[in-house]
């Protein structure tokens, strides 16, 4: 049987990748929301499930596995926003 690596890659992108994207989004969202930090973290978490639901079909329906991972890569700038103080502290 022929193994469809492109499909496996797409499935990984739309499960683990989608979660990573939602996670990065929630981190950025919690960082950017004004007001109390605990409230921001909760709002980000509750919102992230709706986004996750949207991310999975969005990523899975990309025409190639590469494009699917391209969408997942949006997690990098979002995570940078969410974790900028931590990243900043790494700079010597």
């Amino acid at each position: 049987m022929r193994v469809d690596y492109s499909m496996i890659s797409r499935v990984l992108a739309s499960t683990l990748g989608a979660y990573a994207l939602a996670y990065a989004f929630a981190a950025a969202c919690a960082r950017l929301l004004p007001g109390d930090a605990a409230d921001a973290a909760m709002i980000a978490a509750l919102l992230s499930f709706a986004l996750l639901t949207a991310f999975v079909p969005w990523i899975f329906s990309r025409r190639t596995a590469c494009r699917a991972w391209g969408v997942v890569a949006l997690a990098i700038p979002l995570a940078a926003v969410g974790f900028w103080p931590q990243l900043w502290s790494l700079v010597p």
Partner: protein
Amino acid sequence: MKKPSFTQSMSLLHTWGGLVLGWLLFVIFLSGSLAVFDQEIDNWMHPELPVAEVEQAHAAQVALDYLKQRHPEQTAWRISLPGERTDQLSVSVGEGRRNAEAQFLDPRSGEPLASRKSTGGYFFFSFHFLLNLPVLLGIWTTGFAAVAMLVALVSGIVIHKKIFKDFFTFRPAKGQRSWLDVHNVTGVLMLPFHLMIAYTALSIFAMIYMPAGVHSVFNGDNKAFTQQMYGGQRFGGPQVPKERGEPAPGADIAEVLVRAREVLGPVTDLSIGNPGYSTARIQARASMGNTVELTKGRTAVFDGVTGELLEPPTPTARRTLFTQRVMTGLHFAQFGGYPVRWLYFICGMASCVMIATGLVIFTLKRRRASEQTKTFAYRVYRSAEHLNVAIVAGLIVACGALLWSNHLLPAQLAERSDWEQRVFFGIWLLTLLHAFLRPWRKAWCEQLCLAAVLCLGLPLLNAFVDGQAHHPWLEGTSVGFGLILLRIARRVANPPAEVPARKRKSEATEVTP
């Protein structure tokens, strides 16, 4: 690889995701629907306990008398009171977890009652979200299934654009087409329920599933987040000093209960710290169903000697926490009494039907398509078909077997509640074996019939074995369930002649990869 269109992608996602997670989702939905009536099932599973409507104050008083007599030196007493859903009265002592070693009492006289040890109706509740797995693994597995459900719904809507037309198209007795119609009708009609139940499921453990905010803003310090979010709200019994003080008579429990109901609404249990001493504290806990908001820890603390209210319940101040608790409350269905319970039960069962028919359609279609070739794919579909039987009909058989074993296992058996669970899982495993040994249609038929017999026999079992009380609602529902199962079994045994499906554009979207 050929580049798939958006609809085709969604179809792939819906059918394959639906198949793999459908098995899990069926298990979660069936146990969840049963868990709506966990307390009622629990009552049925303790036939030695009397059905006797007693004033809560009277029950509390006899429980206190019992505890005073048997456990005067304990520093903590807990009393679980009878209420709207149950007549059970139980007490436990010591600092351990609630109901760790609960002793049932007769709510009328306070006599200790020997009841069979049963895994109880809460088995369905914990199985619903833990699946008998270690806690965190269980929570993550069911969370994954909830997201899969949401994705299946969204992709289902995309591939199934004619939502409104299908409100009015049910073509019974047309073989595979009818199964698809049932799938679509239950899916579409129940769509708001499906979306609500899957989304609110995620809200329960929101911060476990998505701790991103805690990781980023709180730098991963979960304690700091919890402190800020809950403001040091304590769970568990009342706080009392280590020095117990002088022996002192207790406050009038009936008066305390009246005051507790004034500030809390219906009360479900009492925790008493330092009972019998001058520093005694009585903590009353609100039952979960007073508001939509799920407030597990809503309590009021009273002075154990004077009966004075010391700590009134604190309303949820944070709007975000309130939102999360309302969402959780929507999932738990504790808020509207029996009408809401029935609504959730019926909707949950409709979801089970949607999932089960979806599973059947998937395999039916693909096995037929691959029948001539006898390839690897054919074997996969055939296995899936047999697995469907064990997951759908087999689980119903196993649930029935759990209730039967509750009445049939000897009452004095050691580790009795574990044995009930062993029967549940053992029978389920046997149905899996049976499903693979028998031809597909016969396997369905036999297991559905067995499930029907178990359901239909439930009232008889209760009447003949050792039932003291009747549970007309539970037993009536069980009989109704049995009749429906019989009907389905008959339909499966005598399939109507297949009418070739008319070719329609929309139906061509269910692609076979």
